[in-house]
């Protein structure tokens, strides 16, 4: 690509330094010549753009041009990538920006967007709603999740806790010694004693199902990756937690970061991978700091397994595993068609085990006593004690609501924006994969948002429709246009001015988005709306 036409605008000195910190000093002073190896470094495009924005507050033409020159990415493609992410600004704006969550739980808590602030999709701070996220660019950039303090873990210190037992229990999340003193790295030691095949077998026998939403058997996934002849293998931890109402992975990462490092190392050992990528959404700065600290401090203990922290830039769809690969590789976060599945053709086209944070935490429990019998629930909305709850499978929704001091619900959103609403008649639902599936529901990412009698359900539906319209990557027609048509129909219904049979239109949109969209985003974008119409009779004549 020697004759590639490049953007000629020059970066400012600040932008150049910020990008060079990520990419290393250029071999030639003007940065126009790239070495052969630079051509394989496209995966550093997003980190470079993020660095420039953290320095000056936005991605200028000069910064975009410099990053694309350094990495030999065609400028049109670099622009396509930069304009994909909601948190990257392509127009100059103040260095200090507040992003105010206007999503489901924060709406219930009365969120308003002050003048000068920007509305944001769910920030994963639902237990302390209304919440916001402040980014300040500069020589020493910083990011802040607000309010800074959260209510204590509702079950802190209870002996029944497994995944959460170290959180809020006096184990310093920034200290390797504290983690080891609390039993840390014993699972990794046991894994090495057992050998890779036995680890995979134990995980398979535990029947651990993925906790990211799709509930795929972890053992099956690991077995498939381990068996692939193509090399190298990769482990990817999907910590792009962005499902509205979900904050469990953030609390695990903030409160027990070493455990995630240990679990990723076990996944690497079991699947024959020597490299892991940990992809965390941008809005979790405390988790970034603590994870990076844990990765650095644990390096000696990982037997050569390397973990690289990657940070998103505001795109829900990057939680879809193949979109996440695209994002890491420096492309737009557009999901790939499956098959082939990631276990065969994943990150950089290689066999890849992708696991959610909570799933990996369960692996530690499986290696401890063979069991993965608890599930995390993110409870928020009209409840007295919002927060993260860890319960054995089989507890009913009613019991969980009682535990969290929920006001009598008119509706409960189960599984997030991609989940479904249940009505008061369904509260005896057992919170298991089997029972929810039988009822046509999903545990999803463990979201439980409670709507009491006074809550604005129609407003919630409009917000969910807006969320999917905003977050659609735009690649396939059913999702790109379908999410727009769904939102338009809901607005007409809410205004009492339907056009033809809107409910029929919505039902058909739901069927076709589910049937014909490329990825899980489009396939689930109508779930909550459809469930509110069917289960709750919203908009019933």
């Amino acid at each position, binding site marked *: 690509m020697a004759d590639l036409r490049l953007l000629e605008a020059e970066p400012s000195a600040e932008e150049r330094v910020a990008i060079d910190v990520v990419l290393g000093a250029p071999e030639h002073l003007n940065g126009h010549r790239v070495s052969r190896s630079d051509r394989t470094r496209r995966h550093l495009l997003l980190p470079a753009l993020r660095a420039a924005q953290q320095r000056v507050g936005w991605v200028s033409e000069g910064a975009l041009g410099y990053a694309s020159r350094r990495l030999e990415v065609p400028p*049109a493609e670099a622009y396509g990538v930069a304009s994909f992410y909601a948190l990257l600004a392509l127009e100059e704006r103040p260095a200090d920006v507040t992003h105010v969550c206007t999503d489901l739980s924060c709406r219930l808590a009365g969120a308003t967007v002050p003048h000068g602030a920007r509305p944001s999709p769910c920030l994963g701070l639902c237990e302390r709603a209304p919440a916001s996220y402040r980014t300040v660019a500069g020589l020493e950039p910083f990011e802040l999740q607000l309010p800074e303090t959260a209510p204590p873990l509702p079950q802190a210190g209870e002996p029944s806790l497994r995944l959460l037992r170290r959180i809020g229990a006096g184990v310093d999340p920034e200290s390797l010694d504290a983690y080891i003193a609390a039993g840390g790295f014993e699972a990794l030691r046991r894994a090495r004693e057992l050998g890779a095949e036995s680890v995979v077998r134990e995980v398979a026998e535990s029947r651990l199902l993925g906790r990211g939403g799709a509930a795929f058997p972890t053992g099956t996934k690991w077995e498939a990756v381990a068996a692939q002849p193509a090399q190298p293998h990769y482990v990817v931890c999907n910590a792009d937690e962005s499902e509205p109402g979900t904050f469990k992975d953030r609390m695990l990462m903030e409160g027990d970061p070493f455990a995630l490092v240990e679990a990723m190392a076990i996944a690497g050992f079991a699947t024959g991978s020597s490299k892991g990528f940990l992809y965390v959404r941008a809005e979790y700065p405390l988790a970034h700091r603590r994870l990076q600290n844990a990765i650095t401090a644990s390096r000696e203990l990982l037997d050569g397994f390397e973990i690289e922290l990657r940070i998103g830039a505001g795109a829900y769809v990057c939680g879809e595993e193949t979109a996440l690969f695209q994002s890491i590789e420096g492309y737009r976060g557009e999901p790939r068609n499956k098959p082939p599945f990631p276990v065969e053709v994943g990150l950089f086209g290689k066999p890849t085990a992708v696991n959610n944070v909570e799933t990996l935490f369960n692996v530690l429990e499986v290696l401890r006593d063979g069991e993965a019998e608890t599930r995390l629930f993110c409870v928020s909305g009209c409840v007295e004690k919002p927060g993260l709850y860890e319960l054995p499978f089989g507890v009913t929704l009613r019991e969980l609501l009682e535990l969290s001091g929920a006001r009598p619900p008119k509706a409960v959103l189960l599984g997030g924006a991609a989940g479904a609403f249940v009505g008061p008649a369904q509260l005896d639902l057992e919170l298991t994969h089997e029972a929810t599936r039988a009822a046509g529901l999903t545990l999803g990412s463990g979201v439980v948002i409670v709507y009491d009698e006074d809550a604005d359900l129609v407003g919630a539906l409009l917000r969910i429709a807006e969320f999917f319209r905003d977050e659609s990557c735009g690649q396939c027609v059913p999702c790109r246009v379908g999410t727009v048509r769904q939102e338009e129909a809901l607005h007409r219904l809410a205004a009492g001015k339907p056009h033809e049979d809107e409910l029929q239109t919505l039902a058909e949109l739901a*069927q076709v988005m589910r049937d014909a969209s490329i990825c899980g985003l489009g396939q689930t974008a109508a779930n909550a709306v459809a469930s509110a119409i069917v289960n709750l009779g919203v908009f019933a004549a």
Partner: protein
Amino acid sequence: MSQTVTIAAPKRMVELTVDGETVRVLDGSTILDACRQLGVETPTLCYGDTLTPVNVCRVCVVELEGARTLVPSCSRKAEGGMVVHTDSERVRTSRRLVLELLGSSVDLSLAPDALAYIEEYDAKPERFGPDAATVAQDVKIDNDLYVRDYSKCILCYKCVSACGTDHQNTFAIAVAGRGFGAHISTELDVTLPDSACVYCGNCIAVCPTGALMSKAEYDRREAGTWDEAGEEVVTTVCPYCGVGCNLELHVQDGDVVNVTSPHDHDVTSGNLCVKGRFGFQFVQNRKRRR
């Protein structure tokens, strides 16, 4: 010096069932290939015979027994034992609604295939009401060779593939933005003369909706002198260099209005360079012609 010559293993055949009929195709073929082999009509918009499938338009979806969702026939590889239905109610509903979504958001007036499918599937794009959001916008006319009317763009990615690794390797355009705002763009939306564009026009050659069009055609359409019915196609070989690209001169009223190359031509696969595509003025030099 001895040289190792690798010979690929002979390809296997796989056998599958499409609409109740058994069909054998070469391993590596797609479901669409199998459909076409059987003569089963399957609509496609983003599929191009010379391009890597991107499976984004979703009009070619079919029902595959055992699959949770419908699958895109253009990219899904045929496997032995597959049972495929292309004309079930589920398939027809998806195809029809996808066409309605496109028809309600994009100007399809110059997209003959899409219009034919809309009729065939009895799609009613107007069902979403008069206020349905569209991608309507001004035509981009920033050079003398071709115009870009993204009001007509269905975002099939064909132009991006042709400009990029599938054909031209110029990378002047890419998809930018996200969701309904996703669009084909140069870097920072600069004009074509400021971009990497080399005016090969290979994007025009693959555009299925008339969103990309030569300036010659655009001007005639605007002036009301476009006469597709009276068009004559003359085949010749490009005179510029020694490659030998086959040309199809599209002639209306004695003037060359467009130049294309056959997709099945070994040398071009339908592609040309700026000279072959647009360098035809000398043919029309009246003085010379006398």
